[in-house]
Each structure stands twice: as C-alpha cells, then as structure tokens.
C-alpha cells in the first residue's frame, strides 16, 4: 500500500513527482543507483519499465532505451531482481510498467507472486485494455498489487468508468494523443480529461506523456495529483550513459522538477 500512502501523505500539499525509467538501461546493474539518485532529487514514485521488442505506444527515446536494455540482457525476471535490489535500500513506491506479452510469457500468477516478493507495489500493462483485464487484474489485486490503468483524451465516459473500476492506487492519464515523448507545448485535452475522471473516481490522478520541463510539470501539477516524466528522464540516461555524472544529472533534474512542484496544489 505504499502507493496510496504516498498520495495520501501529499494530499493538499503538492502533486506527486513520478519518474519513468526503462529498467536495465544502460545496464541492469546501474538501475538501482539511478533510482536512488531520482529519489534523492525528490521523486515520489518510480515507474520501472520492462523493455519490450515492439513498444507500439512509445516514441523514439523510449524505443531506443528498450533496445539498449534488451541488448544488456534485461528480462522481466531481471527487472524483478533490480526491484529487489532497490528495496534493500529504499521504500519508494515502485510501479512495474510493461507491455502484456512478457507478462503472459512469465505467467500472470507467477509474476504477481514474484513481484510482491520483490517489493513491487503495483502494475501497469500498457496494452491490456479494461475489456481484457478482468482475470489479470483480479490475480494482481489478490496478490496485493495495485493495478493502474490508462485513461486518454479519447476515452468515452463509459470507458472512463471502466478504467476507474479496474484501477487501484492511482489512474494514469495520457494527457494527449500520440506516443510517449517530449513536447514543446502541453495539450489542452488534459483539463477535460481530469474533470471527466473526477466524476467517476476518488483515486489520485497522475498525468503524463509530453511533459519535459519544470514549468510544464508545475502547469500539469495545478490540475493533477501527480506528474509523470518519462522520455525527458530517459534522454538524460541516453546522453550520459557513459558518464560518471549520470546520477548527479538525474538528481539535479529531479530536484528542479520537485522544486517546481512545491507550493503547487491541485
């Protein structure tokens, strides 16, 4: 219940800062230190991405990160080992973020058990629609994992209700059409999506896709309970993968984001 406790603790104070990292990029041994750096910089929740060979929802930055991680030998089993390692030193909420096929191959029940044992708090499966989610979500919940689903600007009111029904912990709002990646301007479709979701759920709402600067984070944070950054963080990993300063750079970027979120309330 680390996820709910974290959102509860921040309620009325400021929005949560959520960071996505492709696990195993640039190599599995480095991920725990990258997570620690982000946590020092003020990140409240880590989305641990499982690299997949065919990431249809991702833009070029995360596609490239997935390829690097797979090249470095990162499997779903390895990601669980990484989580276990993170858990030895940290209580930061961890959300496993994966495409469905690696999870199916691993086995849903086996994964639910092993993820809990590794200290994972919740699971988000990008291409598992609420229509297909019934059994998988039940198994995950029974094992004690939160199940986070996506809502998007194109979700109808009926779909928003289904997303709310299947989700626990929080709901991930895709703030605009398209794949993951940084954008200059934020989309105007977030505000109506948030008000639509507030009508059907009391769960915290975190928004992502296209957010890359502290200013954008603050802007989104005025509407949502959490702000997710992915590609902007993965790009720092990409550009500094061979540098000793990688951790320092991640920490200082996270610090600039968390500073921008202080004093912002939804």
């Amino acid at each position, binding site marked *: 219940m680390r996820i709910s406790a974290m959102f509860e603790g921040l309620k009325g104070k400021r929005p949560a800062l959520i960071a996505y990292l492709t696990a195993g990029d640039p190599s599995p041994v480095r991920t725990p230190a990258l997570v620690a750096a982000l946590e020092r910089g003020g990140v409240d929740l880590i989305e641990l991405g499982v690299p997949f060979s065919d990431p249809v*929802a991702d833009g070029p930055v995360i596609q490239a990160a997935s390829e690097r991680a797979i090249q470095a030998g990162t499997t779903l089993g390895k990601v669980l080992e990484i989580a276990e390692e993170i858990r030895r030193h940290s209580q930061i909420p961890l959300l496993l973020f994966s495409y469905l096929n690696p999870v199916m191959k*691993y086995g849903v029940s086996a994964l639910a058990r092993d993820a809990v044992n590794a200290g994972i708090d919740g699971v988000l499966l990008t291409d598992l629609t609420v229509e297909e989610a019934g059994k998988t979500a039940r198994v995950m919940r029974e094992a004690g994992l939160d199940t986070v689903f996506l809502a998007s600007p194109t979700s109808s009111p009926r779909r928003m209700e289904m997303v709310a029904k299947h989700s626990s912990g929080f709901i991930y709002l895709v703030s605009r059409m398209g794949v993951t990646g940084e954008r200059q301007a934020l989309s105007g479709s977030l505000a109506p999506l948030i008000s639509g979701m507030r009508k059907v759920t009391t769960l915290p709402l975190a928004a992502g896709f296209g957010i890359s600067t502290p200013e954008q984070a603050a802007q989104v944070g005025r509407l949502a309970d959490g702000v997710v950054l992915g590609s902007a963080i993965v790009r720092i990993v990409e550009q500094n993968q061979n540098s000793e300063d990688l951790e320092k750079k991640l920490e200082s970027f996270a610090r600039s984001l968390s500073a921008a979120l202080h004093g912002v309330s939804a």
Partner: protein
Amino acid sequence: MRGSLSLKSSQPDALGHFGEFGGRYVPETLMSPLEELEAAYLAAKEDPAFHAELQDLLSNYAGRPTAIYHARRLSETLGGARIYFKREDLLHTGAHKINNCLGQALLARRMGKKRVIAETGAGQHGVATATVCALFGFECVVYMGEEDMRRQRLNVFRMRLLGARVAGVATGSRTLKDAISEAMRDWVTNAGATYYLLGSALGAHPYPMMVRDFHRVIGVEARAQMLERESRLPDAIFACVGGGSNAIGIFHPFLEDKGVKLVGIEAGGRGTRLGEHAARFSGGSPGVLQGAYSYLLQDADGQIALTHSVSAGLDYALVGPEHAWLQQQGRAEYTSATDEQALEAAKLLSRTEGIIPALESAHAVAEAIRRAPSAKGQVFLVNLSGRGDKDMDIYRENFIELDAQGSDYAH
C-alpha cells in the same frame, strides 16, 4: 460470449474473440478509434448502397470475378490430383490485396477521413493502398521497413508513382512488424482525420473480421465455380498464411463443408530454429502482438522473435487470430513450406502452366505439389493469391544459373 462461436457463422464475439484468440490489446488511446471503426463498419455492412458500390468497383476496376483454372499440364506432370487455381493473381495490382483495400477505402470515405496510412511488407498491400488512395483522392502514407524497401525496390517506386509517400522504418528488424508498429504510432497520434488501412486479417478487433469479410468473395466465387466445373466441391484447398487474409478469404465460405480439407501453409524459411522461419503453429506459442492474441514466435522472455522467409509477405511473427481458432477446432490444418520448396514450386508452375506466382503463393503451390501424386481422383484448389512480377529480383538471385546462361542459342 466466449465459447459460443460456431463454425456455421465463425463470427467473433462482441469484443472480437475467436474462442480465446483475437480481442483488443492496444493502448487505451486507440480504443475509441477502434470502436468508431467498428461502428462504421457494422453500419456499412447493413447498407445496400455500400455493397453495390463495392461490387461495382470489384467488377469494373479490380477485375472480379477472377478465373478458376484447371492446371492440366501441372496435374499430369504430378500424376495424381486434378489441380485448380483460383486466379487472384489476375486482379488489378497483381494480388488479392485489392479486395480489402477497395472495401476499406469506401469505409474511410464514409467516415469522412482524408488521410490514409498503411503498413506493407512485400509492398503488395502498400501498392494496393496507394492505388485506392489515388482512386479516391486520399493523402497516402505507407510505412515500410527499410530492409523490405531494399528487397522490394520496384514496389517502392510503384507506390511513389501512384502519389503515395513511402515512410521508411529503421527500427527493430526493419520489416513488416516494425512497419505495423510505426503505423500504429501514427494512428495513435492522428486518429481524428486518419484512417488506418490494415492489410491483413491481423491486429485488434474489428480488423481480423472486417478484412476477412472483404476477402470472402474469393471463396464465395470459388465455391460456385467448382460446383459449375466439377459438379462437386474440392477435396482440399491450399492457401499461404502470413497474416492469413487470402487464406481466410477462401476458407471461410467452405467452413461448413466438412468434406473439404482446408490447408494453410506458413513460411518454413531456411530452418526450424527460432529466427529462421515464420511457422507460428509449429514453432510458436500463444501471445499478444500489435493488438491480437494468437500464435506468436517469441523467445523465452516474451520478446518477439525475428522471422525469416524468402517471401516478405509471409515474414511476420503472429498468425491471424481466426486461423489460430480454426486450428484449435481442428477445422483447418497448418503446415509449412521452406524457401527452397517455394522456389522450386514457382519454377515448376512457370514451366508447366506459364504462370509465374508470387513467392507467397508459391508456398501454397508447393504443398499441393507435395500431396498431389498420392491423391489420385481428388480435386485440389490452390489460391494463387498473387503474381510473381514483384519477385523477379529474388527469383534472379535464386536461379543464378538461368540468369547467367548467356545466349540460349548456339551460334
């Protein structure tokens, strides 16, 4: 609804399941475009004007009905079954793909879309899409893996001549599955004004059902033609299976004809090791790729495996979900032909009948050739889904001795 599927209709349930296969496995952002597409398709299906216009285009533009041809010399050479070919290779643009493209283009126009995107492997679907876009005045973007662009240069040029933009895809294996991923990324970004014209019986519901419906005409015609020519139905029907659109199109109207064996032929490539072929039934296991749950070539960690086939059109890691269901029901059987068997079959068909098949179709021909000698008295029907013009470079590379023999007359 699951489990209520019968061979009589072979219609998926409301969520697109053929038994446990099919369904919709996509990012949430694509769900509403898929629901919009499904609603538009179901409405069009009930509209006589839609069918009349499609029928007119199929007859007067594409060249339907296609002939059914008794291959006497090939049959005599093999000394067994009487072999017939359904001549989809004679259609405009050279393959069955145009059936689906005309249907979906009419649907796109009905939905008010102005921009059409598509993926292509061998380039046949890309050419058919570029063709209908020219016909309807749509902006057209075709995603194609850079490796396939290299293998199918002529089709790249054909698409450009037709006014389409060919967008090279440099990610992953640079083949069909990467082109599909890139088309899905475009669609997820531009769904409002863009129609995604998927080219096979693959992807999320309603595509497998809709693409199948647009190709059913192949089997409907063939069934009537066989009855007229032989006063009986064939003993077996052979069709190659990449995604499986030509196969499901010819199989579907025969599903209730229990005496008709349905045989799908996958790409056996150059070996049985993972990565050397595209035989999903013998070498794969159920999984999810690009919207559908079906038999999939994957590694132990659930990463999608690379595939190989001499034929780009069969070179894909997932088989269409309705085929997975037909296999599970025991209604259709699936086997494979190797690169070499397909090439030899193409050569034999060329020399006995004067018909040069597409490399994809040559896989189906190969299996019919293999079985014909021991099938005396039987009637075989092979779906000749495309012609070989586009494959001439590959035939030349593989039949070097023909290309290098110089003057065929002694002076």
